[in-house]
C-alpha cells in the first residue's frame, strides 16, 4: 500500500529516501514502504502494523481514503475499528509458497479477516495476490490461489462479481498503478492494475437524509482552542456551529470546526472521514466509541438489547452467562450474553428451538446481551452501520450480530 501512495505522489521523494536509509540501518529494507503507514517506533522496529494507518489518494473518478488495517491476531480489535469505517476492502494475500497456506488454513488470519469484513457490511472486495515475483510470476500459482480463495469467499457471502483478483508485487511496484512491464506476467495477465480495481469499485449510497451520527474514533489535542475528535460521519451531515449531543454521556457540545484531510470545510456529509473541533465539553468526558448525534433525534442508549447473531467456527459452545467483548464501531465493551432466546434455522430464519441450552458452531440465534456500561446502538433496520457488532472471546471472533431490539 505504501508503494501505491508513493507512486501516486502522496509521499515525497525526500521522505521516501529517509525511510529507505533508516530501514536499511535496521536491516529491514523491505519494510521501507510499510513505514509510510506505520509510524510509531514500536511498529517500525517490529515490522508489523499495529493500529490503523490513515491516508488518502485520488483515482480518476474518486477520492479514496485508505485505512491500513493490521493483520496480526492480537490487533484484530484495531482492524475491526478500521473495517467498520470502510466501504470496500482490499485483502492482501502472500503468494509465497507456504505463506498463503498458513494464512488460509483453519487457524490462519485470512479467513477471519474475510469473514469479519463481510459481517461488517463490506460487500465489494479486491484480492491482491502479492509477492508473485517470488514464485516467478507463475500463472498456475495465481490460479491456485484464486480457486481456493474464490470458493471460500463465495461461502462467506461475497458475490462473485464483487470480488476481483489482482496479481502484483508491492516491493517492486509491478501492476500497482502502471500496467505491468514484466514479460512473464504479460504473457498471461491482461486484467486491470490495482488502481483500476479501486477505481472500479461502486460508490455506496450515503444516508444523508437521516439524522446526524458520528462515531468517535480518536480524541486528540489539536492546534488552537478546544480539542479534536476524528471519526466517520455515519449518517446525515454536520456543519460548523452545529450543536451536537455526545452520547452515552448525554452532554451538549458545539462544533467549532470541521476538517476533512487537514483541509477546513464548513460541512461534511455521511461517508466522510472528518475531524471536528469541539467546545463546551471536557476532553476527559469523551472517549473512543462515543457517538455525536443530532440533538433533536438522539441515538438510543442502552445496556440491554436483543440481537440476531451468526455464530462462527468456535471451539466451545456459547451458553448463557458467556462473557464476551462487544465491538461496535470503535467501541469495545465488556458484555454478557444473558439469555439465549431462540436458535434459528440457518437459511430460512425460522425458530428451530426455543431457549436452547447452548449454541454450537455455525448456528444462527437470537440472544439477549447486557453490557457493563451503557452503549449507543441503533436498530439494524434503521441504521445499518450502527446496528452491526462483533463478539469476541479470548482473541477469537465468535459471532457477528445485528441489533433487533433495544430495551
Amino acid at each position, binding site marked *: 500500500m505504501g508503494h501505491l501512495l508513493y507512486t501516486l505522489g502522496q509521499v515525497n521523494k525526500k521522505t521516501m529516501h529517509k525511510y529507505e536509509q533508516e530501514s536499511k540501518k535496521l536491516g529491514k529494507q523491505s519494510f521501507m514502504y510499510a513505514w509510510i503507514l506505520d509510524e510509531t517506533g514500536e511498529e517500525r522496529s517490529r515490522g508489523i502494523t499495529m493500529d490503523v494507518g490513515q491516508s488518502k489518494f485520488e483515482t480518476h473518478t474518486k477520492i479514496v481514503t485508505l485505512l491500513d488495517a493490521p493483520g496480526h491476531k492480537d490487533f484484530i480489535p484495531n482492524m475491526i475499528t478500521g473495517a467498520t469505517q470502510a466501504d470496500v476492502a482490499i485483502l492482501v494475500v502472500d503468494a509465497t509458497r507456504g505463506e498463503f497456506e498458513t494464512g488460509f488454513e483453519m487457524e490462519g488470519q485470512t479467513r477471519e479477516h474475510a469473514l469479519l469484513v463481510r459481517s461488517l457490511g463490506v460487500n465489494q472486495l479486491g484480492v491482491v495476490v502479492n509477492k508473485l515475483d517470488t514464485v516467478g510470476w507463475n500463472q498456475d500459482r495465481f490460479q491456485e490461489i484464486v480457486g481456493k480463495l474464490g470458493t471460500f469467499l463465495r461461502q462467506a457471502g461475497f458475490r462473485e462479481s464483487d470480488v476481483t483478483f489482482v496479481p502484483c508485487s508491492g516491493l517492486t511496484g509491478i501492476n500497482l498503478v502502471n500496467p505491468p512491464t514484466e514479460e512473464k506476467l504479460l504473457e498471461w495477465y491482461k486484467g486491470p492494475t490495482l488502481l483500476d480495481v479501486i477505481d472500479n469499485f461502486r460508490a455506496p449510497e450515503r444516508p444523508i437524509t437521516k439524522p446526524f451520527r458520528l462515531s468517535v474514533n480518536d480524541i486528540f489535542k489539536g492546534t488552537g482552542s478546544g480539542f479534536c475528535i476524528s471519526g466517520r460521519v455515519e449518517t446525515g451531515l454536520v456543519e460548523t456551529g452545529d450543536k451536537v449531543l455526545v452520547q452515552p454521556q448525554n452532554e451538549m457540545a458545539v462544533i467549532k470546526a470541521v476538517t476533512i484531510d487537514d483541509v477546513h470545510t464548513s460541512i461534511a456529509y455521511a461517508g466522510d472521514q472528518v475531524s471536528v473541533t469541539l467546545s463546551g465539553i471536557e476532553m476527559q468526558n469523551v472517549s473512543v466509541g462515543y457517538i455525536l448525534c443530532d440533538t433533536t433525534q438522539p441515538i438510543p442508549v442502552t445496556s440491554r438489547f436483543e440481537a440476531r447473531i451468526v455464530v462462527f467456527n468456535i471451539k466451545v459452545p456459547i451458553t448463557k452467562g458467556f462473557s464476551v467483548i462487544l465491538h461496535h464501531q470503535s467501541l469495545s465493551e465488556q458484555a454478557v450474553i444473558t439469555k439465549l432466546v431462540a436458535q434459528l434455522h440457518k437459511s430460512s430464519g425460522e425458530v428451530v428451538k426455543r431457549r436452547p441450552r447452548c449454541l454450537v458452531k455455525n448456528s444462527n440465534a437470537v440472544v439477549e446481551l447486557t453490557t457493563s456500561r451503557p452503549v449507543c446502538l441503533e436498530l439494524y433496520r434503521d441504521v445499518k452501520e450502527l446496528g452491526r457488532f462483533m463478539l469476541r472471546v479470548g*482473541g*477469537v471472533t465468535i459471532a457477528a450480530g445485528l441489533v433487533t431490539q433495544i430495551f
Partner: protein
Amino acid sequence: MKLVHRNVDKDGEGVIALVPEEPEDMWHAYNLIAEGDCVRASTIRKVQNESSTGSSTSSRIRTTLTIRVEVIDFDTQACMLRLKGRNIEENQYVKMGAYHTLDLEVNRKFSLQKPEWDSVSLERVDTACDPTQNADVGAVVMQEGLAHICLITSSMTLVRAKIDQCIPRKRKGNVQQHEKGLLRFFENVMQGILRHVNFDIVKCIIIASPGFVKDQFYEYMFQQAVKTDNKILLENKGKFMLVHASSGFKHSLKEVLMDPAVISKIADTKASGEVRALESFYTMLQTEPAKAFYGIKHVERATEAQAIETLMISDNLFRVQDVKQRKRYVTLVDSVREFGGDVKIFSSLHVSGEQLDQLTGIAALLRFPMPELEDEDEESDEEK
C-alpha cells in the same frame, strides 16, 4: 483463620469460635454467617454517663456483644464484614433487644452459633483454617488505554484499580501525541502497581496483554525504576511474569490463569483449578452435550441417577436467606459426594465463579450421557 474451639453436637447444633487473621478470612466468615445465627464478638461502644448533678461524661468501652444476625454486609474492597441484629444478651451497657451493628475485626475472636452446621459450612471452616492454601498473586491485565490491577488470593479476585485512559491514535505526522499518551498510561499503571501490590506477600506478579503492550510496559517500568532508583521494583524483578491475554478486560484473567507458565507457578490455587473445571465443562458441552448440564433442575435429576462425576456450584447459592433452598443445595452436594462424585465449590469473587453465577450457579459433568434430560426440557417448555 484460627480455630479456637469447636463444640458441635450430633444434630449439628453448636458453637465454633474463630480468629480471623487475614482479610480473606472475612470472606470466609461472610460465607459462614447466615441470617438467624448468633454471633458473639467484642466491639467498642461509646457510653454516656449522667451524674447526679446533671453533667454528663462519655467514655469508650470495649464490650462483648451477642447478636442474632439480621443483615449481613460485605465490602469486597476493604474486606469488611458488618453484621446487624438484635442484642440477645444483656450487660451493663447495652439493653436486651436493642439493635446493634458489629464490625468483625482481624485478630479478634468471634464465636458463631448456628442452629444447624451442615457439611458445607463445616468444610468451609476447615478450608479457612488451612494455612497451606495461601497464595497471593498480583495480576495486571492491560491493553492500550485500559488496565485492571487485580489481586488473586485462593478464594478472591479483587480488582484494586482500573485505569481507563484515552490514548490518541497514530496520525499522519503526529505520532508524538500517541507516544506521549502511551507513556502517561504506563506511568499510571506503574503507580497503581506500586500502590496496590504488597511485594512482601505476593508470590508473583503477572502482566498480561495482547500484542507487545506488556513488553513495552515492562521495559518502561524497569527503565523508570532504574532512573528513580526504586528499590522495591528492582529487588522484585524476578517476580514479574509476562503472559499473553486477548484484552485488558477483567475476564481475560481466565486466559491468564489457563496459561501453562502461570499454572506451574501458582500450581494448586483454587483460582486456576476453577478455571480448568469450567473449561472442561464447556469442552464437554461441545463434544458430548448429553454429558454436561447446568441448572438446578437438570442437575438434581442427574443426581437421582447417580450420574454426576464433577459438580460445580457457586458459593453464592449457599448464601441464600431461605433455609429450605440452602438445604436443597446442601443435600445435593452431600449426595454427589456419597456416590463418589467430585464437588467443586466456586468462589463467586473469581472470574470463573462470576461466569458460573451467570450460568444459574450450578453445573455438572456426568459419567454417562443422559439425553433424556434435554428432551424433558423441551416438553416443559411447551407447557409454558
